[in-house]
Each structure stands twice: as structure tokens, then as C-alpha cells.
């Protein structure tokens, strides 16, 4: 890595959704979905050449609408899902679909070579529709690689689809209704990679709930996990029971799901809503958070990590602290590359700019 300068990639439209392509082996791939009310939306497939520090991109058209959420399949490189809103004059609803990246696509063209406006279309695999019409906030893929089941988080229920059916429309296998009073709309959720992938956790307003997929019932609740809305959560990829959440009360909290009364640790570096939080897959002491206080913070939480203390020589700060801060306008989404552990951080500056940093994320200004 001769050049440590961050690589910046500009998007045409504002964007809110970003994910690392999970199924890919060696290369660093990200998917970005744009948000535009008026123009045709796009999905950017970004290939980052780590050694030459070059970004290759492929742009696909996403005709259905603004993309609010994007997630890629764990086992099949070509599959991913989006949650998008179709906006008409009078209504706007969130729908979900599974897409396939066309196989016979052109080799990714280098950034800048952006002359052709005719981008290829994505292949629509199927729509994911709940039985009762409801906004689908996000789609979760089974983390162990079982490609048949996906989960959709609707406003007040969790829906399971089986993709492995002959018919074009996937069948709703089952669904869980979120019971309770008042506002329980889900904001986001994660599939727990441990316990044979039998658990998911969802963020509902100020609380976090854990669900057992075998019994289809709630197994734990962290009531008032945050003072205000919980924005995002993530499981420690290497240490079961460990969970991190972030929310509008500007805090990032670490939890043990066996003991939900008290957080294990609270970080309060941010001064506005914390939009997203992600563990690094390999070095789980590294936690990346983004906030609308215009900062992305890379935290090193060695005390709650699966790695033994002091093991990481390269960045051994000894204790938990925030390693890097980076000033953004309003970063909405962060993601780690899933391949090279430490090497690459990708972050969506909640707008038209995607920044690829080598641990030191940075971005160009665009406020969205």
C-alpha cells in the first residue's frame, strides 16, 4: 500500500444505501444504491483494486425507484436485494426486490470513463411482497450462505420468504407480528451470525428486540436501549452475544444479549444522531460509526473484542478509544470491506460521494 490517500468516487445522485458484497472472495466490492426522485436511479457496482488503488465501476439502472436499503446475498455473488420507494403524486411506499447482476456485463470501466448514458439493466429476480401491504424497511440475507431464505423487516412485522420456489414470486413462509403498544416500527435489523443463524435482532423505536426464528418468538428485549430512536445495530462477528447499537441520543452502546439491563460500554463521542455502526469482520475491536454531526469515527474497543489484549501490534493503543475522526458533511452509511479486514473502509457520505479509505476514511463534501 504505497499510497495511503483515500480514494474518492463520485456518484451522480444522492445515495443513502451501501453494502459490501459479502459473497466475493478476494476482491473488494461494494454496492451503492442512489436516491433520486426525478431521474432514473442506479446501482453502482464498485470494484476496488487494492494494490493499484484504483476503482473500477459498473453502473446498473434501477428503474423501480429510490433505493433506501441495499444488501447483498452471502453466497451468490450476483444476487442482491434493494428496498426502494415508488413515489407517485399521492403516495410513496417501500417495496423490496431481489436482483441479479447480469453475467455478460462488460468489464468494469475505470472511473471517469463515463460517457455512455446507456447503462445496463439489472435482472429482476423477483419482488418480495408481504401478504398484507406494508413498507419493507430492509432485507436480511441468511449469513451462513443458505440462499433460500430472506427476511424482510416491515413496519410492524418480520416476513420470511423462500426464494427457492419454482414460481417467479417467492412464497411467504411465515411472519412474526410485533406485538405491543405504541410505536414499534422497525428501523433496522441484523441477522445474528451465531447460534446456527437462528436469531435476528431488530431495532424498534428506542428498544432492541431479539427473535428466535425456530419458535418465531421474541427472546430478549433491551427496553430503552437508547434515549431516542435506535438507528442501527450490528453483531460482533466473532464473539457471540455481543451486540452494538447506535441511535439518536448520540451514543454507541455495546451489549451482552444475555444481560440486557446494562450496556457493557457506552461511547459518546458523537454529538448528533449516529446513523450507522459496523464491526470489522476480522478485527472486531474496530468499530466504525457515522453520524450527522459530520464525523465518521473509527473506534478501537479492545476490551470487548475477541482478540486478546495487545495482540494487534499495528494499532495497539492499549485501551478503548476513538482512533480516527473524519469530518464529513453528513455520512449516512459506513461499511467495512469483508475481504481484507483492516485494509479498506468504505463509507457512504450519505450523498453522492463514496469514499474508500485505507483505514483513514475521508470524503468529499456533500450534504445529504
Amino acid at each position, binding site marked *: 500500500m504505497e499510497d495511503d490517500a483515500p480514494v474518492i468516487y463520485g456518484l451522480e445522485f444522492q445515495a443513502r444505501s451501501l453494502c459490501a458484497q459479502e459473497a466475493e472472495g478476494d476482491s473488494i466490492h461494494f454496492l451503492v444504491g442512489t436516491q433520486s*426522485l426525478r431521474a432514473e436511479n442506479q446501482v453502482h457496482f464498485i470494484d476496488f483494486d487494492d494494490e493499484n488503488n484504483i476503482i473500477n465501476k459498473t453502473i446498473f439502472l434501477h428503474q423501480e425507484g429510490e433505493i433506501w436499503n441495499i444488501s447483498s446475498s452471502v453466497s451468490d455473488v450476483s444476487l442482491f436485494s434493494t428496498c426502494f*420507494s415508488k413515489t407517485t403524486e399521492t403516495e410513496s411506499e417501500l417495496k423490496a426486490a431481489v436482483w441479479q447482476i447480469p453475467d455478460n456485463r462488460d468489464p468494469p470501466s475505470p472511473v471517469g470513463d463515463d460517457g455512455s448514458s446507456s447503462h445496463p439493466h439489472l435482472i429482476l429476480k423477483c419482488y418480495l411482497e408481504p401478504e398484507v401491504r406494508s413498507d419493507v424497511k430492509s432485507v436480511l440475507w441468511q449469513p451462513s450462505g443458505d440462499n433460500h431464505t430472506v427476511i424482510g423487516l416491515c413496519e410492524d412485522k418480520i416476513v420470511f420468504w423462500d426464494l427457492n420456489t419454482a414460481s417467479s414470486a417467492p412464497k411467504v413462509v411465515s411472519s412474526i407480528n410485533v406485538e405491543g403498544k405504541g410505536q414499534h416500527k422497525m428501523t433496522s435489523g441484523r441477522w445474528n451470525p451465531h447460534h446456527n443463524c437462528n436469531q435476528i435482532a431488530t431495532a424498534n423505536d428506542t428498544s432492541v428486540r431479539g427473535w428466535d426464528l425456530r419458535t418465531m418468538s421474541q427472546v430478549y428485549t433491551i427496553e430503552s436501549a437508547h434515549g431516542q430512536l435506535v438507528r442501527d445495530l450490528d453483531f460482533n462477528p466473532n464473539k457471540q452475544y455481543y451486540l452494538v447499537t447506535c441511535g439518536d441520543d448520540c451514543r454507541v452502546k455495546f451489549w451482552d444479549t444475555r444481560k440486557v439491563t446494562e450496556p457493557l460500554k457506552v461511547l459518546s463521542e458523537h454529538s448528533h444522531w449516529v446513523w450507522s455502526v459496523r464491526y470489522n469482520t476480522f478485527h472486531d475491536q474496530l468499530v466504525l460509526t457515522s453520524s450527522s*454531526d459530520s464525523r465518521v469515527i473509527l473506534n478501537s474497543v479492545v476490551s470487548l473484542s475477541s482478540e486478546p489484549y495487545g495482540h494487534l501490534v499495528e494499532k495497539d493503543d492499549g485501551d478503548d478509544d476513538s482512533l480516527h475522526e473524519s469530518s464529513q458533511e453528513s455520512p449516512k452509511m459506513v461499511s467495512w470491506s469483508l475481504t481484507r479486514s483492516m485494509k479498506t473502509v468504505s463509507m457512504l457520505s450519505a450523498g453522492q460521494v463514496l469514499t474508500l479509505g485505507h483505514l483513514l476514511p475521508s470524503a468529499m463534501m456533500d450534504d*445529504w
Partner: protein
Amino acid sequence: NGTGDERRHRRDLKLYYGMDNGETEATSHIVPQSSDPCNLDGANFQSQLYLSKLIQERSLTELMDEEQKMVRDIKGLDSDMQTLVYENYNKFISATDTIRKMKNDFRKMEDEMDHLASNMSAITDFSTSISSTLQDRRQQITKLAGVHSLLKKLQFLFELPARLNKCIEMEAYVQAVRYYTKAQRVLHQYEHMPSFQGIHTDCEIMIKHLRGRLMDRFRQKESTAKQLTECVDLLLQLGEPAESLCDEFLSHARHKLDEDLGELQRQMKLYSGELSPSEEQRPSQAYMNPGMDVLEFVDSGCNGFLSNMCLVIASYNDMFMNRPQADESLDTVALRKLVVFVNDLMEQYFSSVRQRVQLEKETGDNTILVRALDRFHRRLQAMNKLLPDTDFSRAGTEIVSKGAKDRVVHYLKSLKQHFADCLTDIRQSLAAPRIAGKQDHGTRLADLLANMQSSVVEQFKSVLGNLQAFIAPDITFAMKPYFRGPFCSQDVREGLVVAFVKHVCTVCNDFCEVPGDKTTSPPALLLILSRFCIDLENAAISYLLSLAEEQFMVEDRTSVTAATDLFAMAKDTGQRLLNHYVRVQGLTISQMLRKSVETRDWLNTIEPRNVRAVMKRVVEDITAIDMQVGQLYEEGVRRERSSDSSRRTHALSTSQQNRRPQWNYAPSIDNSLMSNIQKLFSEKIEIFSAVEFSKVSVLTGIVKISLKTFLECVRLRTFGKYGLQQIQVDTHYLQLYLWRFVSDENLVQVLLDEIVCSAVHRCVDPVMMEPSVIDLICERG
């Protein structure tokens, strides 16, 4: 001339008898006269010279007279000579007579002497014959006298057991011991003879008995010291080993002292309530007697235990030490025993006093405690004199210091408690009359703060006043530097003042740490506390420190916390509290805004006719916050821009006009490009900058956070035409009312512009409302 004659005669006589000496001086004196050749009486008289001189010097008549006088002198001399010769002759005759008479007397005396010699020899003969006859008798008499005394001694021996018995019966132990010691050696010597052996054993039995009696008396509790001394004296004479006696005595004394200690322990337990008095007393008495207070306790300790201890030491000294006949080693052994004994007991005593002093937890006046400690200290010093090698005053001072330290800790605790009570009071009065109206509510914040400050300071003063009892001039230990130095600087200044300030800071900091989740503290409390911290920094800390330093004359300032550190700490805490206040208030308003944006269907809303109620509510709340903060913080610096509203509205309208063309652009790259370019040139807004200690700055912070939330929420929604217009109305309304709260109205402007801009971006059919209509709606609302 008569005298001259006499002298001449005498000289002649002297010359005659060869008696020169003694008169040599006189003669030598006369020499100058006599050397004059013209002196008639001189030895060197020369008649020719004299004559010629006379003839030359004198007249005729004078010569005649001289001649006559000369003749007269000669005649006188002649008659003198005659008388002298006659006298001498007479004397000579009488001397001859005397010698003749003596010759006769001596012849008679010789005869008598012969007679005496013959008599003497006769007497000598007689005397030798008598003494030879008496020789035998005398030896017999001497022998008899010896036998007599021996018999007397034997009689004494035979009578000894009876005598001893009698003495013992009469309790004349001294006598008995004297008898025994007299006889002991003899008895010991003739032990082998059966009769003596009998006596000896009898005596032994008696003495054993006596010893037993003495021991009994020695062990008796009620024996007086004098009796004890006597006993020990006698027992020592009887050859009892001194060491065991020491032990015996000490264990005997220990018994008594243990009783005293036990009583002290009991009193302590009574006081602490561990032991209910009813166990030994009737309930009514028990009610009356809840254990002694500390002064009584120390008194009883001094009078009971310590006095007895002194007594024991004194009598022990009398008995076992400095005895004339005892040897050095006994002294050292005895002293060692005593020291061990005393140290052991004193240790127990100290521990019970220490425990008792620790029990003294009540607040309020501690003069009693101080007096008690003082008495204790003095008494110990007195004891030191008694037993030179040991130093109890150190242990005593430690107890006193510990007591003082405990008091300081206790007072610190009570101060903390008081502070916590103050906080609770404030919480309650904040919670109670919410309905009473916001106007009223605002004025009361300042009162609450003032109340808390004065009450804390008052409490502090009273505590310091109470603690001053420890260094009152009439207290002996207060004057000792080894007490006073650490007490004033370490205990009072550090342990009380500094620790209290630190505690306040910690408590306040705790309010900032992860609250808002479970136990929400009212924002007004945060505000009051932050002001309290600032006041601490500005005045109170230095006041309290100087108060303490003055009252306690703290001199050693080397090892103490610097005031500047405390200032920094207080300021830091105040800052954190204020930041937290801004955050809490900002989040409250944010929450309101967020809910209002999220719950509305912006696509299908009707044409705006009113400002939404939530906006009014936001303005109301911010006004209330403004009142709140205004009570405690100064206005602060506003950026000079435009204070008159006419200019402001003008600025607003122009800025809107400036923006207008931009909105008409097709929303695409150009749009965002434009806004980006615009942003590059406009001032960058620091939304989450640190808050200053002024009303304007606090309000600015809250407004910024609220508007930022509004912006973020708007970006998550999709708007219809009227939805966008409603946002326009709302933001204009906010613009109208919020500018006055913030330091830089441009900031509100920029944020609100951005909100509208975002709404335009998220709008499916962006058609703006006429500014005049907006104005109208806002004025009506």
C-alpha cells in the same frame, strides 16, 4: 637629767652583765648622739674639744652657770654611785643567807626518800602474792558467762515457734520475720541435730504459714498499697523470688485494671447500642442511662483506669525497684516486666478509647469531644513522667489525630449529605409547581441557586466553626505542631474543603454521564448546577479556601492542592453540565420535531393555512428555555448584524429572492452543484461547537441542534407540493421567532434555508409558495 642619769646607770649595768642584745637598737640609736664629741654622756666625748667649744661659744656668765651646773652634776653622780654600791652589798648578804638555809633542808629530804623506797618494795611483794591466789577463779567465771549467753540463745530458739505463733496470731508479721531471719542461719547450721531439726521444721511450718498469710494478704483485693508494700518487703525478706512476686503483683493489679477496662468496654457497648442496658438493669434505669457520653467516658477512663494504673506503677516502683539491697539485675527484670504489663494494658485502653472516639458520630457541637480528647491527652502526658522509658503520648496523639480526622471525614460526609439534600430540594421545588406558570418558574431558578449557594456556604462555615474547637488555644494538643500542622493543612484544607469541591464536581459530572436513559434529571437542575460550578470557580472556592486557611492558619502550602486546579476542575464541570444541558434540551426539542415530521403524510397534505402547532410549541419551549437560562447566565455577545427587524426581514426577503432561481432549476446535478458551490462560499456552520457561559451561546446551541434534527428528518421524507409549502411556512415562522435567541441570526437563516432546500429536493412537485402569503400566514399564526 634624772632620766639621763638612770639610763646611764642601766647601761653600765648591762655592760656589766653582758646583756647587749635587745638593747642594741637603743644603743645604735644613741650612737649619733654619742658620736658627738661634745656630748657629755657620749662614748666619744673629748673633754678638750668640749671645753674649747664652750669657751668659744659662751659668754662669761654662761660659763659660770655651766661650771656651776657641772659641779652640781658631779655631786649628783657621786651620791648615786654610793647608793648603788650599798644596795648591791645588801643583796649579796641576803643571797648568802638563803644558800645556807637550803643546805640544811636537802639533808632532811634525803632521809625521807630512803624511807619511801623501802615501803614501795613491801607493797609489791603483797600484790604478787594476791594475784597468784586469785588466778583460777577468774577463768571459771568467764566460762560461766559464756554458757549463760548460749543458754539464752537456745532458749530463744526453743521459744521461737511459740513466739512466731504468737506474732502471727497478733499479726505482728514484721516481728515474726525479724525473729525468723535471726534464727534462720543457726537453725540451718545445726539442722543435723535432731532437736534443732524439730525446731527448724516447726519454724518452717510456722513460716510457711506466715508466708501463706502474707500471700493471702498480698492477694487480697482490699489491701492498701502500704500493706502491700509491707507484704512484699517481708516476702522478699523471706526469700520469696522477686520475679514471681512481680508477676503475682502485676496479675493482681491486672485483675483490678481489667475490671476498669471491662467497665469502659461495657459503657462503650451501651453507647453504641450493641448491648442493651436492660440486661443488667431495670428497664426504667436503662431508659435513663444510654451509656456515657464521650467526656464522661474519658473521665471515667482517666479516673478509673489511668489512676489505678498510676497507682500500680508507683507502688510497683516502691516495691520492686530501687531497693537498697536488691541487685541491678532484679531492677532491670522488674522494669521489663512492668513495661510489658503497662504496654499491654495501655494498648487495650487505647483501643477502647479509639473505638469510643470513633463512635462519636453525631453532628453538631464537638466541644465535648475536644474536651474529652484534651483531658485524655493531658492525662497521658502526666503518665509519661511516671514511667520514663515508654511514650504513650505518641499513641495518645495518634488517637487524638484519628479522632479529629474522623470528625473531618464525618463532617465531609454530612456536607455531602447536605449537598445531596440541596439537590433533592431543588428537584422537588422544580417538580412541584410546574403549573404555577413559566414566568414564576423562571424567577425561581435564581432563588434556588442563591439558596443552595448560601446554604452550602453556611453549612461550611458552621462546620469550620465546629472544627475550630480542635485548635482552641486552651486545648493542649492543639498547640502541638505534630497535631496542628497535619490537622490544619491535610485534614481541614485537603480533607474537607478540597474534598468537598471535588465531590461536588464528581456529583455534577455524574449528571452528565449516561443519564437521559433511566433517571432523567430535570434540565433546570443541570442549569443550576452548571451555574453553581461557575460560581464555585469564580468566587466560592477561593472564599472557602481562604476561610479555612485563615481560621486554621494553614502555613504549609507545599503539599496541598493548588487552588487553580480546583478552579479548572470546577470550570470544566460547569462546562460539561452546560454542554449536557444544551444536549438534553436540544434533544427534547429534536424529539418533538422528529415526531412531527415522521408522523405526517407529507405527500397528501392540504394547502397550508396555518403554522403547525408543533412549531409554536417549539418557539414556546425555546422561549421558556431562554427565560430559564436568562435567570442564571448573562446575555452574552451577539454578533452585530442587524438588531432592527426591518433590516432583518429585508435580508430575509433578499436571500429568498437570491435563492429563487436556484429552485427553478431542474433538480439534477446542477442543483446540488449549485448548492455545493454556494456552500463553498458561505460561511461554514459549526453546529456542535462548544457552548460558552452565556445565555445567547446556550440558546444558539439548542437551536442549532433542533434545526439540524429538523433538517435530517425532512431529508428522510418525500413531499408533495403542499407538504413543501407547509415546510416553507414553518421555517419562516421559526425564522421570525428564533433569530432573537441566537448569537448570529445568519446561522438560523442558513439552517432554515437548508431545510427548505432539502424539502425542495425531496419534493415530487416543487412549487414554492409566494413569500407574501407566507408572511401573511405567519403573522396570523
